[in-house]
């Protein structure tokens, strides 16, 4: 099922366009990697999808309706984000962070129902960090923090989750663990997952499709394997023949 669709979307700040003419769709169960050099506009795209900034041109549709026609509360139930920034409060607990994901569903004083508490526990279990529930968030390792932020997005119970560089700062085993977690969310929970990453080798293995923002601000979308076979990846990443052959194996 089609969840998100852009038509002739241009993104950027005020009148400065960073990337233009983006035409993509995000479907149920998709796991898509957004790749490109630093500064190409990956974060700008996330900020546009999360309505932190307005598109410079074109349209974004969410379930066939214009993204900006949703109220902030409605949107919060459809699209969850995980960013590179982290809460840094001295006493904020893991439970509190994941509970924040229930914010769009709670009443005026944010009182959690039994159902909310359950969702929080299930989310933590799904990412495998339920033992951290009473810990202070600030005392966790980078990998644990990342998982808790993902648990927050799961507790938010949205059909789309977008993650900005979720594998940065992680060691190799944690990266693999995270990629398989994202794949599991896409395949088992039928969520649409969009994430940015620089780990080309790994993401080719775990994702179906790639969105590439290239240096010349062009936007290319396509099947990961095909993009690799027909040399598009090689071209945009400036890979040597030997490196390309290695990835093709």
């Amino acid at each position, binding site marked *: 099922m089609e969840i998100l669709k852009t038509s002739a979307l241009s993104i950027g700040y005020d009148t400065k366009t960073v990337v233009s003419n983006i035409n993509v769709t995000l479907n149920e169960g998709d796991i898509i990697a957004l790749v490109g050099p630093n500064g190409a506009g990956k974060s700008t795209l996330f900020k546009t999808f999360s*309505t932190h900034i307005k598109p410079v041109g074109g349209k974004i549709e969410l379930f066939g309706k214009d993204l900006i026609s949703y109220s902030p509360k409605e949107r919060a139930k459809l*699209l969850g984000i995980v*960013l590179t920034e982290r809460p840094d409060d001295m006493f904020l607990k893991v439970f509190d962070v994941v509970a924040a994901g229930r*914010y769009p569903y709670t009443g005026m004083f944010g009182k959690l129902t039994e159902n909310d508490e359950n969702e929080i526990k299930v989310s933590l279990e799904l990412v495998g960090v339920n033992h951290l529930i009473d810990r202070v968030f600030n005392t966790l390792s980078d990998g644990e923090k990342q998982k808790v932020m993902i648990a927050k997005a799961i507790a938010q119970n949205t059909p789309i989750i977008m993650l900005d560089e979720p594998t940065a700062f992680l060691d190799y085993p944690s990266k693999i663990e995270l990629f398989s977690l994202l794949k599991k969310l896409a395949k088992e929970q039928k969520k649409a997952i969009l994430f940015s990453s620089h780990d080309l080798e790994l993401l080719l293995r775990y994702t179906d499709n790639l969105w590439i923002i290239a240096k010349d601000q062009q936007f290319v979308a396509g099947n990961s394997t095909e993009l690799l076979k027909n040399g598009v990846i090689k071209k945009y990443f400036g890979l040597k023949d030997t490196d390309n052959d290695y990835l093709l194996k």
Partner: protein
Amino acid sequence: MKNSKITFGILGIIIVGIALFILNLFVGSVTVPFDEIFKVLLDDNPDKTLSVIIFNYRLPQALTALLAGASLAVAGLLMQTLFRNPLADPSMLGISSGASLGVGIVILLTGAISGTAVSSFGWWSTIGVSLAAFIGAVVVLFVMLAFSSRMKNMTTLIIIGLMIAYLAGSITDILKFFSLKEDIHAFVIWGMGSFSGVGTSKMPVFAISIIIGLVVTFFLSKNLNILLLGEMYAENLGLNLRKNSVIIILVSGYLTAIVTAYCGPIAFVGLAMPHIARFLFKSSDHRLLIPATMLIGMDMALICNLIARMPGFDGNLPINAVTAFIGAPVVISVILKSRK
């Protein structure tokens, strides 16, 4: 922290507060015997003079300290969470500076127009000073609201607030330079802060305006909690950032403006009390922090008022000299203790 521990902590703070409140009634330049307090309060054939001292001076003063302490402390908590800066306090919005400017303008204008000092107008001068302080505070508050409604970035907002505070401060200094000597004295006294300015006659208006503001803060707890994750996350969770910061600045500015108008610019309470609440309860949940901060603010203001009025000081020690003197060691000890 377990629920029972939280209840225990809150109850402890309340009991200390009640004890301090009673102490405030009978300690001062005239010591009221303990049994007389109850005679006066229960109207059991009390001593006339003592009755006047308690009802007209000590009770309103203790109530003022209670309400002002709660207001400034909770206003500080709101600022610290909104700006995600542990050093933020209501003065960062330039509100106290705005109040000072208002007072400065009134003092200069009366001096320049009538040629006499404001203080020579007696009772009217205290009303005039309160009103001027309130108007000055509100004007700065609206300037800050105008900025906050156009900005999402809290760092730029905090810088603008500080600049406005400096600007108002320097204009006040220029005004003072041209003022009469008697008025500068009046201005300095106002700037030292005091809980004795409200009195019985102005108490109803003061109390009702403050209580309304305090009640409203409870409705902000959910949004404040969500802000702890950071602005981008809060926005993604459905929080309207601009609207929310306008409301938080409005509420904390409103409380600060009223307290400053009646009691003068009181420093330190807003900055320090939220930290005591956080470290004491090891929590960042505003549903707990808001009432805890208010209660701790009340206790602290009552302690300060008590010390400022100790018999030896003849009732004249400025509150601002006491708040940091008492408060700073408390904050340091609370932090050190929780670090163990």
